[in-house]
């Protein structure tokens, strides 16, 4: 628990449920008869309704992007470093909206919800949702909230893909698209890692074809393994060397000294136990994740990633997808991100240029790999802050 809630925090927040009765036809052709979205907002919507920002979450994120749910929370929301009064996404200037996406497990309708047709958990029967479906549901939320257009839609990784989909499908409903550490579509290597994660879940003996909740259990080992593999892809080699290297703070020293090979108990076990700190860390991360995340949601989220390809309607040409995307773009990538490396962001930038779009792009030096997009890297946060000042200034000049 924080000693007291910091002054630059949005403070205590309470999520709100938005219920939708209108059926949602999904990309797969299946229809979700009705659904609920769990939403948090920070900062006030101005009278001209021109200062709303949508935050799109990534694979394991949710609606709780900033602030605390109660005084006893040990940690704030997942992007608290960037959202708050005076922060990069300044809640003194903007009305920030973040929701748990459909198929999630943090409160919006998903596999852990009750299927009204069977009165049982949806489990594996929850339909596969795509980035396009999420954005469609976000559009309905926007209409419900009576927000005419977003000042900006912002997201990193899978969240960045939602940003791209917004710019392609509903360009008239946003002024700026801010896409961080994303890719125009997954590579074979990306899909391969996702498949390892999925296979580890589905082959867990407690998976029960996805109906584990009905049996009051869950595929803990599979989910752990999925997260451990995923976690490795979020970090860089350098980040791991620094994190697990001789507990010295000087990064270069640690990387040259022992390559991050800190031992857990000071000596090798000559057995198949956990010897190195990195092993123990992965076990801990996996275990903690498995207790807080639903396995079916993990399967859905990785499929949404795999299926994302905005070029399918445009003969494989991403630049054609952006032909009507009148919004302005900011893209950022991180030097050691090997999951969605800078070249992938440059592909998007180049297709935006080809489509004649206004775009800014930064390649930020950072040792933290893909995870960097969630961390307060000074250059990155400063750039985001300056760009959003522009978004704010332009919004005001339009309104006057």
């Amino acid at each position: 628990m924080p000693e007291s809630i910091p002054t630059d925090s949005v403070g205590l927040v309470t999520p709100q449920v938005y219920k939708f009765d209108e059926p949602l036809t999904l990309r797969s052709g299946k229809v979700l008869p009705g659904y609920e979205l769990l939403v948090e907002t920070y900062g006030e919507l101005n009278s001209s309704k021109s200062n709303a920002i949508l935050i799109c979450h990534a694979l394991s994120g949710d609606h709780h992007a900033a602030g605390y749910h109660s005084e006893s929370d040990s940690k704030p929301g997942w992007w608290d470093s960037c959202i708050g009064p005076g922060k990069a996404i300044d809640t003194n200037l903007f009305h920030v909206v973040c929701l748990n996406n459909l198929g999630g497990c943090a409160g919006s309708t998903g596999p852990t919800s009750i299927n009204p047709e069977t009165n049982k958990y949806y489990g594996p029967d929850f339909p596969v949702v795509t980035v396009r479906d999420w954005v469609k549901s976000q559009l309905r939320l926007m209409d419900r909230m009576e927000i005419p257009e977003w000042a900006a839609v912002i997201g990193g990784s899978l969240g960045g893909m939602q940003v791209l989909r917004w710019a392609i499908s509903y360009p008239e409903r946003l002024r700026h698209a801010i896409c961080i550490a994303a890719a125009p579509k997954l590579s074979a290597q990306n899909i391969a890692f996702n498949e390892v994660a999925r296979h580890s879940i589905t082959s867990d003996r407690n998976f029960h074809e996805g109906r584990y909740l009905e049996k009051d259990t869950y595929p803990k080992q599979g989910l752990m393994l999925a997260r451990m593999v995923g976690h490795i892809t979020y970090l860089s080699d350098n980040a791991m060397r620094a994190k697990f290297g001789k507990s010295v703070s000087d990064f270069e020293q640690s990387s040259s000294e022992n390559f991050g090979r800190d031992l857990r108990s000071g000596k090798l076990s000559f057995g198949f136990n956990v010897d190195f700190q990195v092993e123990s860390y992965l076990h801990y991360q996996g275990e903690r994740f498995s207790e807080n995340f639903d396995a079916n949601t993990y399967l859905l989220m990785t499929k949404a990633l795999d299926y994302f390809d905005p070029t399918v309607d445009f003969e494989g040409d991403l630049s054609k997808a952006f032909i009507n995307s009148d919004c302005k773009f900011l893209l950022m990538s991180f030097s050691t991100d090997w999951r969605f490396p800078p070249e992938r962001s440059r592909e998007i930038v180049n297709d935006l240029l080809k489509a004649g779009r206004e775009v800014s792009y930064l390649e930020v030096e950072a040792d933290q790999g893909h995870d960097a997009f969630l961390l307060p890297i000074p250059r990155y946060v400063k750039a985001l802050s300056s760009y959003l000042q522009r978004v704010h200034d332009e919004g005001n000049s339009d309104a006057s």
Partner: protein
Amino acid sequence: MKVIVMRPDQKIIQQWIEPDSKVLDLGCGDGSLLHYLRTTKNVHGIGLEIDGQKIQRGLEKGINVIEQNLDEGLSNFQSNSFDTVLLAQTLQALSRPDHLVDEMLRIGKKGIVTFPNFGNWKSRLYLSSRGRMPVSKFMPHSWYNTPNIHFCTVKDFDALCHEKNIKVLARTVVDLEHQGSWYMRAWPNLLGEIAIYHISKESD
């Protein structure tokens, strides 16, 4: 309305840029020119820059800026996708200035190039009297650590334009205070310290 202070060379450049046009600024620095053009002429600009701190200052000015190394080429830009492509005080720092000038006129209908004129009498005097590469306030680096690896003179650039069938629409030389005068116009290669060229493809 904010008062915008402009560098004198930018004053000369801006008069060649049409209102509402599209401008690509290669090596845009802190983005002050693009900011000026957007504010006064509603120009749609994109700047390319490699220096992180300058990129940040550009973002603070609200301009579009892309982190890109000019030496890696401009193949990501479409032909004829901009009205004007600018290259201010960067030509001499490129590994192949000639290739970049070609690219400028592929991407833009017109180009504007400014560079320090190595043919200036001060450089000539320094080299001829001391026998060493000129170092001055104007060119503050030593030969071994200078980013300026391809100095040229007004005559050299004229020759390059001639070889490449590039049309020189206008040529101005100014001193370091960016003031022009009749004697500089008379002896540009001897007296001009900064050369400013407005160029286009011959066919235009």
